[in-house]
């Protein structure tokens, strides 16, 4: 079955630096991959979607890359701020595996930005 690996340990960085989060997956490559932000006790918030034929996607201070050869996505937050502190989830489309629409989520990486 599809396995998604995100850094289980928290990532601590200094304000103003670039945070880079990793999402690795095994088995089949999804048609697209998504990133979400989740704050404690709240529902995830959609951030970015990148398709398999896109190498890179940007939105304001966020950048996502998708390398189907490496089976990896990188999520970057530039000029990080303490307000960016949250858990970031990677989610893969399951359509190629199951023929049906569903997302498989990684367990997330907790980002802590120090002022």
């Amino acid at each position: 079955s599809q396995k998604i690996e995100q850094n289980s340990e928290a990532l601590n960085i200094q304000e103003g630096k670039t945070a880079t989060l990793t999402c690795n997956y095994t088995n089949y490559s999804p048609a697209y991959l998504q990133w979400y932000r989740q704050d404690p006790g709240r529902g995830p918030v959609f951030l970015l979607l990148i398709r398999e034929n896109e190498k890179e996607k940007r939105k304001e201070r966020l950048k996502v890359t998708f390398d189907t050869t490496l089976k990896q996505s990188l999520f970057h937050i530039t000029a990080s701020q303490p307000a960016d502190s949250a858990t970031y989830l990677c989610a893969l489309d399951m359509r190629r595996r199951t023929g049906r629409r569903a997302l498989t989520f990684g367990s997330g990486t907790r980002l802590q930005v120090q002022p």
Partner: protein
Amino acid sequence: EAGVTQSPTHLIKTRGQQATLRCSPISGHTSVYWYQQALGLGLQFLLWYDEGEERNRGNFPPRFSGRQFPNYSSELNVNALELEDSALYLCASSLRGDEQYFGPGTRLTVT
């Protein structure tokens, strides 16, 4: 535009009871997804409803069931509650089946 809403916010039940959780999607969204997030764990896919039909189901026992109403709102029912069912239950809605928009969740506690 109103987001996804869920009720109740918190629910406390005892083992063996039944729980009913409700979700209202964003206006115009026809798909509703349910997820379970146990403490410290990732989101586990439960159910997907679209146009009133169950389209996909995660690896959960049959005592987890639900339905979608004509107005696209949805209900998740959990029968014969067990202690390990204690979790945050999240509902999400989607229009095109790509990005999902989540509600605030229902915190279910089984004692």
